[in-house]
């Protein structure tokens, strides 16, 4: 049987970021793609429903926090961006809970962070599987 061409890493990274679990789709693992798409979407949708904070924290919002805590708040915002498609969709639909508003809804904020982390997990696993299959 002829071996198919390996998926370029850059395509894997872009697809994996834009579509949750998209890396799996590129390497032909449709079940894993569908499951991760569901998991990330559910986590993100629940985070939005609970009004989790998603915008970059402003200086005024970080006032009174020590440097490490401020850094964690900014890192958390970056991780939410890693959710990819759902994040972009929420921004396009003008979902704009600020950090301060979000602090009142910690559950939602944590779910948004989790959605980003799950997408990174899916991307890393698709990458590993691609390497193993080569």
């Amino acid at each position, binding site marked *: 049987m002829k071996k198919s061409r390996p998926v370029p890493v850059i395509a894997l990274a872009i697809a994996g970021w834009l579509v949750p679990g998209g890396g799996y789709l590129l390497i032909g693992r449709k079940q*894993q793609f569908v499951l991760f798409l569901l998991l990330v979407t559910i986590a993100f949708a629940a985070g939005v429903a609970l009004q989790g904070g998603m915008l970059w924290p402003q200086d005024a919002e970080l006032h009174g926090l020590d440097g490490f805590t401020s850094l964690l708040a900014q890192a958390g915002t970056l991780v939410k961006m890693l959710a990819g498609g759902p994040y972009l969709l929420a921004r396009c639909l003008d979902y704009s809970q600020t950090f301060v508003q979000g602090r009142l809804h910690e559950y939602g904020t944590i779910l948004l962070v989790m959605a980003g982390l*799950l997408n990174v997990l*899916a991307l890393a*696993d698709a990458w590993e599987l691609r390497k193993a299959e080569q």
Partner: protein
Amino acid sequence: MSHPAYTLLMAVLVAGAGAVTGSRTGRERVYAAAYMFLVCIASVVAGGWFMYLVHG
């Protein structure tokens, strides 16, 4: 959303993600998901009791 409901949601998400990764058979994924879900819940219960004993 109540705290127990939120805990269950987080446990389901973590267990699901942990079970879906890697090269496994369907049966292995189900076992892995069930195991991770139970471990998550057991950890929360144990942590809750620990905090109760520490703080009263």
